[in-house]
């Protein structure tokens, strides 16, 4: 029983990270039709900015992590907004070129991080209370899992409130359905594009911070490895749906953990791909296709 609880909470923690990356990816594709292969790079850059800042400020690991995370999130959001303004905006409706640019950007940013900070993993500032465990029904759960889950829940609630109760949220939800009609109502939908990119970059950077806490270190390939699962989550959840993305992230995180333990170590990734195939056969548009909610 304790093993099952540990696996479940760890799976939820992993799902929380997938959700943070996938939510931005999903909104960006849903609103703009942009398959952003550079999204993982936002995570990596955000994580490295957090780590670098933490090595240059004083205080204990908790303070270092907090200050570093604030800088990391700001860098992730700014980088994403800049990418949208400079590289993506001139290429709207040119999908092949967008893919080429975002793939190229992902490679460039990854190479840049390697060139500046090297290939080796860098140790993340993780306070002791996050490394400690809490016992639940006999299972010793690392506290960072709760932080990851709580953060993802807060981001989910925040994004849901943004989409439901703000004018920009209304524009994003409408734009996911019919971008041309939004402009035909006199709205400059490009401002929403930049905002959604920035929100996506911020959430990805947050995933970068939490992955640093989860793994205790950050390395140049982190964003790329997590991006693959984020894409699977987005496809399963349905492009443009925050609710669908959240459900898919939880399911993928849990399936991966359970399969790794109960079937065979390393089988988790295969189980996730099988799950993707099953969902695509049953519901080709994903769980909640093309409506931002």
């Amino acid at each position, binding site marked *: 029983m304790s093993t099952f609880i540990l696996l479940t909470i760890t799976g939820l923690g992993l799902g929380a990270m997938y959700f943070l990356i996938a939510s931005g990816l999903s909104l960006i594709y849903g609103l703009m039709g942009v398959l952003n292969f550079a999204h993982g790079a936002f995570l990596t850059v955000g994580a490295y900015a957090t780590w670098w800042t933490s090595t240059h400020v004083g205080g204990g690991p908790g303070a270092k992590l907090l200050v570093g995370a604030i800088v990391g999130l700001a860098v992730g959001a700014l980088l994403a907004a800049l990418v949208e303004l400079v590289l993506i905006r001139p290429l709207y409706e040119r999908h092949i070129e967008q893919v080429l640019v975002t793939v190229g950007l992902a490679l460039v940013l990854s190479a840049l991080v390697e060139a500046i900070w090297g290939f080796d993993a860098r140790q993340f500032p993780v306070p002791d209370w996050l490394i400690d465990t809490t016992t639940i029904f006999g299972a010793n759960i690392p506290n960072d899992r709760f932080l990851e889950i709580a953060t993802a829940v807060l981001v989910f609630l925040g994004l849901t409130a943004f989409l439901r109760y703000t004018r920009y949220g209304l*524009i994003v*939800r409408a734009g996911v359905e019919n971008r*041309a009609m939004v*402009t035909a*109502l*006199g*709205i400059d*939908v490009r401002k929403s594009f930049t905002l959604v990119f920035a929100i996506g970059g911020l959430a990805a950077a947050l995933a970068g911070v939490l992955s640093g806490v989860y793994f205790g270190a950050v390395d140049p390939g982190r964003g790329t490895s997590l991006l693959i699962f984020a894409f699977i989550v987005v496809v399963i959840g349905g492009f443009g749906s925050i609710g669908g993305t959240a459900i898919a992230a939880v399911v993928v995180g849990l399936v991966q953990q359970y399969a790794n333990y109960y079937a065979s170590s390393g089988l988790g990734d295969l189980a996730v791909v099988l799950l993707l195939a099953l969902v695509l056969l049953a519901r080709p548009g994903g769980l909640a296709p093309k409506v931002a*909610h």
Partner: protein
Amino acid sequence: MALIEVRDLHVHLGESHVLQGVSFEVPEGGVTALLGRNGVGKTTTLRALMGLVPRRGRVSLAGAELTRLPTHRIVQRGVGYVPEDRDVFAGLSVDENLRIAERNGSPRYELVYELFPELKTRGAQKAGTLSGGQQQMVAIARALLNENSVLLVDEPTKGLAPLLVTEVAAALERAAELATVLLVEQNLAVVARVAQQVVVLDGGRVVHAGGAKELLGDPERVRALLGVHGGGH
């Protein structure tokens, strides 16, 4: 003086040269109907005026050039648009569909609810669950919510039951009291009821422009230009 001037408008969609030098004028006030057989470029003309398709030529509103402006700027100049297939946001409620259309601090909800009282009672309902007629009300209401000098309305009665056609025609008449309307419409009875001017397209060009009564009162001419028994009587 013409409120809208269209000069030598060309639109290519893929391999097809849809508009081949369309030129016409829309006088200020009332309803001008844009007529023609299926596929002659009526909807494309409205979409070109809105900047929703790449176009070449000159379009001006009250003397100001629109051709170089993006769609949202054209709308902000006072151009409302009711698209052919309504294009309501299916996942948004009726209230949200109206709220997103607000462009200034004083949206005309009183007018909208006076014309379409049903929209008030269905405010919380998802627009995708409305009937075709109710969706058309939402589409027209979005354009009427703001003070526009021009309304471009594309086949508002398409697929509607006769009772709803009458309701939509009444709304168009009311709209014409507030703004100049350029209307694409296949139902000649509606055209006869609301329009004062007509422009007829064929093969991507204007083949006739003049008074609505004169054209619709000449069945031979209607049959020759539109391929239907006309008159709208």
